[in-house]
């Protein structure tokens, strides 16, 4: 049996860089509420410079959820997906007891941590192996996507419609802030120790991002949040070029041949 790629040593690293282009306006709401009566009801999240950005957590969440949907539908029988919220991997007592029993049986072994980690890894679905779960850290990381250049922010009004009268419902008027279409955000994603058979998943992620099918933020069902990855550059770092990457950074010869 070939060894699984855990996180204790370096096997490989994929780095994806590019520009996320907002094809439609984006609204990723901030949690802060203002007492200012002229302030917008729902403002967009902004960084310390007051510029809007797309949090890495939003993107990673959308990507994971999209992959779960695809893989659960059985498009590729090599890959499986759990439902991370409702029915996660290692989410039931029997599975955890099984792990505990293994833990008990190998506790005298000096390599116990590795053995248990392998047992945990074997019981994870493809998505959990890449995106992580409470028992195994994520191999994939997405940085916050900061604005490149400038963006136009606008305030859009909305109103609820009274179903009986077909007119504006009382006290249902609201407004929200949005980053207008055309805004460009710097994209950086990396995946560590990706197993060779999971390269197809990474390709799938890239295709999804480049096709503009993903939507981030709020109000996606009413036209907002459509993003497309452009100017994509994918690098693959392996043991033979790791030193060069660490000392000199990314180079053209490290580009992954897939793209």
């Amino acid at each position: 049996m070939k060894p699984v790629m855990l996180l204790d040593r370096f096997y490989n690293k994929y780095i994806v860089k590019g520009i996320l282009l907002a094809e439609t306006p984006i609204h990723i709401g901030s949690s802060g509420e203002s007492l200012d009566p002229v302030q917008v009801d729902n403002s967009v999240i902004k960084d310390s410079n007051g510029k809007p950005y797309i949090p890495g957590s939003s993107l990673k969440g959308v990507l994971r959820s999209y992959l779960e949907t695809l893989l659960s539908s059985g498009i590729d029988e090599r890959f499986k997906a759990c439902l991370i919220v409702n029915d996660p991997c290692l989410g039931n007592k029997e599975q955890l007891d099984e792990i505990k029993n293994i833990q008990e049986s190998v506790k005298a072994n000096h390599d116990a941590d590795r053995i248990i980690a392998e047992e945990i890894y074997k019981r994870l679905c493809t998505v959990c192996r890449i995106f992580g779960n409470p028992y195994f850290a994520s191999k994939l990381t997405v940085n916050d996507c900061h604005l490149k250049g400038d963006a136009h922010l606008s305030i859009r009004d909305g109103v609820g419609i009274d179903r009986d009268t077909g007119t504006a419902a009382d006290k249902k008027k609201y407004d929200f802030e949005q980053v207008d279409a055309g805004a460009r955000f710097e994209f950086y994603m990396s995946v560590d120790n990706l197993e060779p058979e999971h390269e197809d998943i990474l390709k799938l992620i890239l295709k999804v991002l480049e096709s503009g099918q993903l939507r981030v933020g709020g109000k996606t069902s009413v036209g907002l949040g459509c993003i497309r990855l452009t100017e994509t550059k994918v690098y693959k770092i392996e043991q033979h070029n790791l030193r060069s990457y660490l000392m000199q950074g990314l180079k053209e010869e490290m580009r992954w041949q897939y793209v």
Partner: protein
Amino acid sequence: MKVRLNFISPFVVGGIKLVSNYIESIDYIPGNVIRAALARYILNNCHYYDPDEVVTIDGIQKKNWVYFKDKPRCSDCKLQTLCQKLGDIRISFFYPKDTMVIPSTLMMCKMDPHHGFVDRLIQQPRCAKCEGGRGRVEFVSGLLKDGKKYNVVKSFVTRTAINRYTGTAKDGSLYSLLAVSATLQDQNTGYEENVFEGQILGLTPQELSIIDELRIGKYTSVGLGRCNVTVMDEKMDTPDVSKVIQSLKEFDAQYKRNNGINDDGCRYFAIKFISDAKLDFGFADVNEYMSTDQYKAVWLKALGINLDVQVEKVYAEVFNFRGYDTSKVGEDKREQPVHMVEKGSVIVFKTHLAFDKVIDYFGSLEGFGQDTDNGFGKFDYHFGGVC
């Protein structure tokens, strides 16, 4: 010389595990902890430091041992004198600025801590300020500041180790530190300081001022225990012997009055430990219950007092302590267990000698028990009450 440690990060010293994953710092710094910090500072700056070097000290093999190597670059080394003197300097315990140790004879009102203290040696154990003057009191320990019980400010730091295979929290590795983060906290202005003071003897201010920043206590490699060292005014208080004798006489009179003793031929005086003391009680040979008189004799022997005095009363907290000597080579780095008499413990002596003879003898003592060079076993006269 008086030395001030101005902490710029919280510290954990002598962390005692209250439960398996909860480590609380003590609120004072023993001298051996300061010495270890100085040793580490010297080694970190030593041109010839070899972590694998083993030296034999008193027949025991040690690593990371500071000694003057007298090699070519040693003559230019700024820490040359500190390195040469480290084994000879005497370091006291360090306490929060402007605090003193509470004598274990002090009792406090159970109902209202603002009612002040009662000293069991010279007063009846009841709070005179409570209605009817019969308020219940209880023993207290710790530190005093401005005549009131004092506590340092501690802060929680929770940490875990990471399982290198899964990248998640390692099983059973979550722990919390309760670190000392401030000695003074002003609620109105938000001003905080974390300042400890003590004494280092055998070094000049110039020799100590070379140190820009020390790291004291545990977890120093992850940011805890950083402090600046400053030398305070050189003036040391020299006690006025006549005043001390007068205070001893007053205590003697009060003690006799409180305990109904009418014997002009004998005198009573008390000392209090202002630091922990490592005493050898020789309990290894004990295999039966002892009478009070036998027990008092054990105390006198453990103190090693060579003067015509008797132990009259002991108010002490003694715990078994077994530390680690991380400089030891080999698996077992534990030190021999010792009986540690806690700071604040009070011992009342009875003697027929005049007080000037007592002062002459006790004044010649560096301290009681082992490890007095690191401030253990230091004592002061106790005149009753908050003094």
